[in-house]
């Protein structure tokens, strides 16, 4: 393993730094780290752009924001290697300054990420929304408008993009885990790392062992793998900077791991909600050392990705889970607030916009069905209404023994209720799409819920996307619903998007369009807005579970085996 010197500065503004000071720090480090990159036209993170704002004042505010980012990054390279092109530099600085002003004026600053980057699962702060002004294709296929494609191997983790580089994972053999870096523009393979997985845990199809989406701060790629824990790889060459072992996730129903890390400032945040020992980790991005860990004992297995919420003058790491949406202090990992309106199973990730957190619930069953129902339905093999030790996975035997209060070798009645689900959090299923105001303290259940709607037939609902005035969700069968994000008022409910089947991928948006990827490999393109308007149905030719990434006018679609980059010519 190759270790790098410790770097105390946050690496990049793309990692969503807050405030001017952080921005400046980010640029400084980002600048150093980009010397060995080969930026392509336009595929440039915004780090450098931001630093010049306080230094150079604002001018040419009408400059194209995206162009500003691009030029800014290019100058970052020039800065060190040459100082000859003052004209270019000057233009770039002015453009970049304009960008920052735009962000400040129009409210995009705290979680700001340049449009060219898609640095984590579901993009900037898991929003799934591209802010690039570049046009995105409407009609495409596995062969049409494909800028490049590459066969990777099995995987359901999403690609990410930063600094013109794309990072993605795959299984490259039965017991080999691969991490790839490509030039996002050309598809040129920049590096590839492979890791022996060791004995793999049980998972349930269609999950894959390559299920986690990496995150990056522009310097390192942070990757999670169930048997390896968290890895930080150098974006330049893929070499391991650090590895942080984590306890293996254990699921009563063998769903398998699929959580993804995020980067906040210089902190890698990783939420591992399993059924055994759910926990939220804060790991130093530079060193891989644990900053804090916060147990989440009331949670059950789930896959919500943490999101950053700026509201009411505070920044929270917000994580959804069993029964609760919880805001954590990113500095300490301590709970700041909790909103107890969620159901038992939350497979989806929330989104944040303007200090409001939106949650859609991929749940199952009615509101009275606690975990006990599922346990007695699926784990009680002999269907005698009791759980014997042999009926549950070995990993849970110590917990079983603790729960078997009377020591009779079986769990029954109340023992089943509380063996794996916290006794003070015995929530059942549910049917909700919610909007919750961030920035709270303590229990905000009665104070911060803006709206909470019961959508018909909620099972298998995707994560929500909030774009424009619209909150959009899709579910199994290609049934979609859209609501007014501000009020929760229904635009349409259970409207068919003409592509039935399952939806594991989150919808993404850009260029005024919604891209909805079905498990069957069709990407349905809808017009953004309050009317259901199917623009196209595009066949990628293979199963797709990963959420696409959008960066700089390109859509990166990760099929079960193949990665496609599609764009307008």
């Amino acid at each position, binding site marked *: 393993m190759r270790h790098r010197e410790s770097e105390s500065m946050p690496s990049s503004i793309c990692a969503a730094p807050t405030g001017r000071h952080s921005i400046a720090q980010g640029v400084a480090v980002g600048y150093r780290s980009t010397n060995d990159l080969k930026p392509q036209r336009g595929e440039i993170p915004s780090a450098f752009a931001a630093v010049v704002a306080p230094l150079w004042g604002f001018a040419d505010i009408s400059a194209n924001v995206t162009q500003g980012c691009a030029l800014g990054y290019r100058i970052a390279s020039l800065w060190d290697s040459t100082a000859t092109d003052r004209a270019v530099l000057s233009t770039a600085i002015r453009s970049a300054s304009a960008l920052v002003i735009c962000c400040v004026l129009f409210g995009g600053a705290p979680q700001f990420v340049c449009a060219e980057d898609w640095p984590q699962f579901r993009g900037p702060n898991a929003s799934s929304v591209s802010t690039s002004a570049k046009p995105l294709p409407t009609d495409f296929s596995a062969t049409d408008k494909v800028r490049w494609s590459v066969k990777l191997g099995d995987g359901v983790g999403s690609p990410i993009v930063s600094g013109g580089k794309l990072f993605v994972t795959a299984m490259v053999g039965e017991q080999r885990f691969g991490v790839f870096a490509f030039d996002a523009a050309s598809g040129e393979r920049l590096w590839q790392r492979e890791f022996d997985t060791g004995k793999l845990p049980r998972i349930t*199809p269609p999950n894959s062992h390559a299920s986690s989406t990496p995150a990056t701060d522009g310097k390192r790629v942070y990757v999670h793998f169930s048997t390896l824990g968290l890895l930080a790889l150098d974006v330049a060459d893929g070499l391991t900077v650090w590895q942080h072992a984590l306890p293996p996730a254990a699921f009563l129903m063998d769903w398998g791991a699929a959580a993804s890390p995020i980067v906040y400032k210089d902190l890698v945040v990783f939420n591992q909600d399993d059924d055994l020992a759910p926990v939220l980790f804060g790991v130093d991005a530079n060193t891989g050392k644990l900053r804090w860990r916060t147990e989440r004992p009331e949670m059950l297995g789930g896959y919500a990705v943490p999101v950053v919420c700026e509201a009411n003058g505070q920044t929270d790491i917000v994580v959804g889970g069993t029964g609760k949406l919880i805001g954590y202090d990113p500095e300490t990992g301590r709970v700041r607030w909790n909103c107890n309106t969620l159901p038992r199973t939350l497979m989806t990730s929330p989104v944040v916009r303007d200090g409001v957190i939106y949650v859609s619930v991929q749940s199952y069953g009615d509101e009275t069905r606690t975990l006990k129902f599922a346990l007695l339905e699926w784990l009680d*093999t002999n269907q005698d209404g009791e759980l014997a030790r042999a009926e549950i996975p070995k990993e849970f035997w110590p917990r079983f023994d603790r729960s078997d209060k009377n020591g009779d070798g079986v769990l029954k009645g109340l023992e089943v209720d509380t063996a794996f689900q916290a006794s003070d959090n015995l929530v059942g299923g549910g049917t909700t799409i919610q909007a919750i105001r961030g920035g709270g303290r303590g229990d905000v259940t009665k104070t911060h819920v803006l709206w909470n709607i019961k959508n018909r037939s909620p099972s298998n609902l995707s994560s929500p996307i909030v774009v424009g005035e619209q909150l959009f969700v899709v579910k199994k*069968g290609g049934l979609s619903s859209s609501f007014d994000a501000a009020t929760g008022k229904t635009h349409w409910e259970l409207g068919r998007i003409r592509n039935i*089947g399952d939806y594991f991928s989150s919808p993404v948006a850009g260029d005024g369009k919604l891209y909805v990827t079905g498990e*069957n490999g069709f990407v349905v393109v809808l017009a953004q807005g309050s009317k259901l308007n199917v623009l196209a149905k595009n066949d990628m030719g293979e199963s797709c579970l990963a959420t696409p990434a959008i960066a700089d006018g390109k859509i990166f679609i990760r099929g079960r085996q193949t990665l496609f980059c599609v764009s307008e010519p």
Partner: protein
Amino acid sequence: MVLRSVLSWTLALCFAALFLLTAIPVHAGPQIDIVIGKSPPPLERFAVDELADQLRKVYEADVRISSSLADDSPATIFVGNPDTNGHFKPFAAKWPKLSGQGHVLRSVTHRDRPALLVGGGSPAATYWAVTEFGHRLGIRSMLYGDLYPVSPPPLKLDGIDVVMEPVVRLRTWRMLDELPFGTAAWGLDEQRRVLKQLAKLKYNRVILSTHPWQPFVHFKFNGVEKSTGVMWHGWTFPVAGDTAGRAAFGGAKVFDNPDLATATNYDERSAAAHRLLQGIIGSAQELGMSVGLALPAVEFPKEFAAVLPTSKPVPGPSNLTVGPGPDQRPDDPALIALAMAQIHAYLDAYPSLDAVYLTAPHFPEWTDAADDAWKRFAARSGTGGLPSLESLEETAKGNLDPAAKVFAVRALRGNIVALDFYHHLLTDRKWLRRMLHLRQSPIPELQSSPTHRDPNDPLDTEVNLVHVDPVLVPHLEKLLPKRTGVLHFIDHTARRVAAHGDLLAAISARPVPNTLLLTLADNNYEIVPQASHLSLNHLVDAVRQPGWVGFTVRYRSIGDLDLTAYLLSRGSFDPKVTPQSALVDLVTPVCGEGISDRVAKAFELIEQATTLIDVNDLGFSFPIPGVILKHYDSDQPVPEWWGKVRDCYLNAMNEMYRANTRAREGGRSYTLYLARRFEFGFEYMNCVEAVRKAGLAKRKGDTETQLAELEKAIESLHGGLNAMAAVARSNSDRGLIAVLNEFGYRPLKRELEAAEKSAQK
């Protein structure tokens, strides 16, 4: 200087030791020597490799294979028999008398250490002895591959004494046929894989069921050259675009047998098909199985209508063949010559075949000549031989309803004409010997293959006629051409056949080689999961009786049949085997404790569903165009039994998911496949129910309900096909998905689009 030398040597020794340590493979398990004869038959040598593989996989054993004894061997296994392995001589007294199918596992002492004899009365039987040893280690041979034990027993060579002789001597598995979800869809690699599993399960024959319109043979007759050579009745099955469950196809645009997929014309297809069939025959025979070919004797590609003026198209999905018309004479030399030409073509193309099965038309219209034919039978049998045809017709009518009486009489007369034709076809003894795959011996004293045959077993080569009408059974030996056997097709489903106890007993009393056709899954509703273990067990009981030589299975989709294949295999050697005991014995070693009850419950429900369909609508899901939309066109309400079948599938699915959840360290491939397969059955029932409701709504002019139900139907079928696709592991599974897309899913979508357009007007 000395010091330097010492250091150099030390270093060199260290490196050498390091090299040796890394070069020697590390085995965690015991050391075992397998001792084989000096020139073992190929199959025996193959058996030894199989044995070594078992020991390595189950115990991580360090296995040595040698034809000489090792002095230091802690454990020795002798493989073969006294004729093939000289090392058996010291144990001659311990070697039992065996038939060619008998096999032995017997502990002996060798150099004061425990040792084991593993062998049989033939190389095939030795191979079975090896697989029996694996079975006792907990290895279970499914049709798709082997599963290994969750907790293997301690490896020991002492205390074993197993001698097995079959109680059902002919155990035949049928392959190929005509639909994409049968083994006709399998390339040679897949065929070889399943053949190996069948050999492990001690099946000793395969029948290759072919049709004249397929490209497996080419021939000319009287200036007419065969030009029809297609698969799937000529249908094509695209899987590109919006195909439900397309993940199973790996990007292919059209579903086909992979070995024939690249052929672009008749010649290429014929050549590819020949390679495939020849490959199957060779592989099966290498594994100790004999191979029979089933073909219709009086059905010819349609171009041969030109040389058979009285012929008529044979009813079928695509009218690709012709057969005798109602007034065709069975002794017509032109007909006999044409039939001979076709059969000869098969025998020339596949000269190593061991048996031929001649099938009669399924729906005989060839009836006019029955009276003359019966007179000829009466003349052949001499005085006091046969009853009158009229009395037989009365017997056939029985207590049936009027329509069924007509059908029964027609079937009887057609069968009599066909039997008379066979007499004319098979009278030429020289030709018959030629037909019997060019072997040296006359029937029934048939020669034995030098590699694996039992010289005393008369089962290896014969001509079998498929189906003799039940009314004719009491006179069977008088109606058959000499030295032919009968493969009895009594009824469509195992449940129905099991109800014919008297007929089964009557057949067993006839002094001809009788084989029973066991329907594992009936093609009339084969799309949905079926199970008939109780009935099949009853029928295996029947064929253990004298007068029967064995059974042949009938099915198309192989995916559900692991337990069935296992039950028939074990039941053929042990009369005490029951469906329940077979299930526990199959599932527990490879899936773990607590699972067999769930699997048993699931199969019980599938048997209930099978019976419900059998009783109510035998042709419920016959896989032809319109298989789904026929329910749309019906004016009948949704039958109550549909709901019961759906619930059976739903509950069976849940049971299999429970089993799958519990099978944590074991054979989850088995439980998950069945869970998904039953999920498909559940969704199929949801689909047809919605289709029926949509059709009824359409009749009422209720467009909103019609559209909603059509959407529901499409979604259900999509979900079901996706469930299948998630676990598809053979081209049968992919074929099923392809067929239902073409015949069900796409027509439904077109119907929805049409209904929507109509609604917008």
